[in-house]
């Protein structure tokens, strides 16, 4: 995807520790004023990538550009980016004011300007009255905001945040999500945000880079990543998804017909496929159906044996198995006339014609029931 005015740009960046490849080939750009998330499970290379942007790590190969300038081997104190560390790394022996003033003073700004800048930034994070306190005298959320102010006061090209909300409890985390968005709008600085929490990434970011095992799986807007995942990993990692393995029976302008392992035939509307998926007959593919897209009850081709129902307040999550033991789930709104089935029942599952989406390949767990594969083979 092209970004008009990239602030940060990674070109084929690779990071290797001995024989271990932490980042394979990161290649994306982050635009001015964007709220950009790097999302993935722990060990996927997102923090290493962030450190290469900050300058704490240097790429083994490839280049990092900042405002168009190659900074791949520039030390951190000469890069105009600032980091909010996971544990904040506030200086315990300095007051809040001196913490925030550390950056401007390092750049030898006149003390009068330091004072006005720090005051202004403490107001942005709403900590004006705490200027003379020590970090240890503040709550976790307040410390977090000091860390933000300390970084933002330097007007960096990009602000890097390493799992900034991980240390906070749930309520505070939700409040800080909103607070972070507000601060970002107010200062207009590019935020690059590392998280393993997909909910956080979806609600806060303009764009997300989903990473897994050192590879960037997909870069895109939350809506696209959720609705049109490029890979099975993205489909499974973002939100919850029913991933139903099958084989293509036929494909033409009208859509693609897929025979699932449990014997159900699904018609996928034209265009509802990952761009990488090859839709020729006989190919192994996976049909994705989001739980909120499926409806239980009535007459439908797919039979689901309900194993569990989980009340979630506004909705009920129904978990079940298809006849070939693929786990599926459905969201049934609570408090409506539609009654959720109970465990032990066998119900039909159906969906709107536009819902199915097809991806290349099978999930790792699929195909273990070889008898089903044989029966499909026979059916073809």
């Amino acid at each position, binding site marked *: 995807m092209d970004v008009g005015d990239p602030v940060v740009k990674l070109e084929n960046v690779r990071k290797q520790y001995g024989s271990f490849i932490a980042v394979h080939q990161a290649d994306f750009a982050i635009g001015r004023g964007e709220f950009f998330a790097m999302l993935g499970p722990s060990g996927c290379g997102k923090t290493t990538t962030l450190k290469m942007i900050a300058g704490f790590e240097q790429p083994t190969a490839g280049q990092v550009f900042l405002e168009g300038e190659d900074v791949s081997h520039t030390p951190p104190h000469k890069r105009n980016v600032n980091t909010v560390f996971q544990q904040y790394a506030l200086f315990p022996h300095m007051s809040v004011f001196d913490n925030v003033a550390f950056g401007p003073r390092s750049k030898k700004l006149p003390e009068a300007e330091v004072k006005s800048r720090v005051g202004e930034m403490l107001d942005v994070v709403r900590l004006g009255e705490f200027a003379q306190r020590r970090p*240890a005298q503040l*709550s976790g959320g307040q410390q977090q905001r000091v860390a933000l102010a300390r*970084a933002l006061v330097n007007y960096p090209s990009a602000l890097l945040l390493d799992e900034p909300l991980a240390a906070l409890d749930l309520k505070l985390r939700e409040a800080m999500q909103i607070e972070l968005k507000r601060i970002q709008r107010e200062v207009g600085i590019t935020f690059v945000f590392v998280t393993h929490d997909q909910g956080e990434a979806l609600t806060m970011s303009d764009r997300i880079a989903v990473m897994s095992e050192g590879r960037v799986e997909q870069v895109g807007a939350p809506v696209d990543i959720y609705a049109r995942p490029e890979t099975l990993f993205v489909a499974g990692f973002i939100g919850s998804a029913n991933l139903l393995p099958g084989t293509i029976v036929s494909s033409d302008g009208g859509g693609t017909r897929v025979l699932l392992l449990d014997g159900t035939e699904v018609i996928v509307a034209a265009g509802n496929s990952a761009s990488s998926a090859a839709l020729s007959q006989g190919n192994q593919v996976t049909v994705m159906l989001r739980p909120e897209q499926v409806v239980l009850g009535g007459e439908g081709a797919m039979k689901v044996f309900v194993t569990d129902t989980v009340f979630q307040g506004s909705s009920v999550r129904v978990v079940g198995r298809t006849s070939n033991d693929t786990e599926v789930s459905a969201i049934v709104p609570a408090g409506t006339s539609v009654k959720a089935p109970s465990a032990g029942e066998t119900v039909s599952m159906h969906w709107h014609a536009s819902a199915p989406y097809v991806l290349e390949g099978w999930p790792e767990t699929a195909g273990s029931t070889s008898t089903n594969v044989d029966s499909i083979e026979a059916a073809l």
Partner: protein
Amino acid sequence: MRRALDTKQKVGRWAINGVAGAAMAYLFAPVFVIVLFSFNNPEGKFNIVWSGFTLKNWANPFSHPELTDALVVSLQVAFFSTLIATLLGTCIALALSRYRFKGSGAVNLFLVLPLTSPEVVLGSSLATLFIARGVSFGIVTVIIAHVMFQVSFVAVTLRARIRGFDWSLEQAAMDLGATPRRAFWKVTFPLILPGVLAAALLSFALSIDDFIITFFNAGSLVTFPLQIFGASRVAIPPQINVLATMLLMGSIAIMVVGLIIESRRRRLNTGSERKR
């Protein structure tokens, strides 16, 4: 049953207090005697029998110039050796706790050696080295000898103190545009300073106090312990006790000030215990 247990506990508590008290007495009785005998009015040259209270020793603490001179020499030696040893030891402790480098295991081993080898061995082998190299004994050789064992004490105690230091603070400083030098002086150094001072204090005391290693390397130089040892066969003036008591009070004063500063800092830096 319950009563029996209570009695048992009582006896146990009594025993613990008794043993602890005895241990304290064992540790502090000699110190107490030294302070007490600085007020003694001895008959003859040996201040070893209590023969009446007087303040005249305290009125003339410097009446034995050879004692006073020796004390001044000891203070000079301790000052310079502590300065050098603290500087070197701090660098070693920082390097060892911060980096894993080739040979860091060997450095670790060599650090512990001076702490575990007998002083007679250290002192005599160093003296042999000086003689073989044709170095004449004096204040310089004594300072070198003291630095040799002080470095180990400084490095080992400081390394224990800065274990668990959050090095991401230094990263944060550099991230904010500080050069590595500024990051060290503004962030790391102020945070490890209490540990450095404590280590320096310890090594200062060790230097003032050292006899064996000094004895081998002093030549004609006379430090306070050497003077007392040499004079003790002909005279033990109460001024020894007076000067020793002064030293004792000096180090207690430094320790108390250190503790006060430390606890104030800690209160500020860690805050009151906060409930999450």
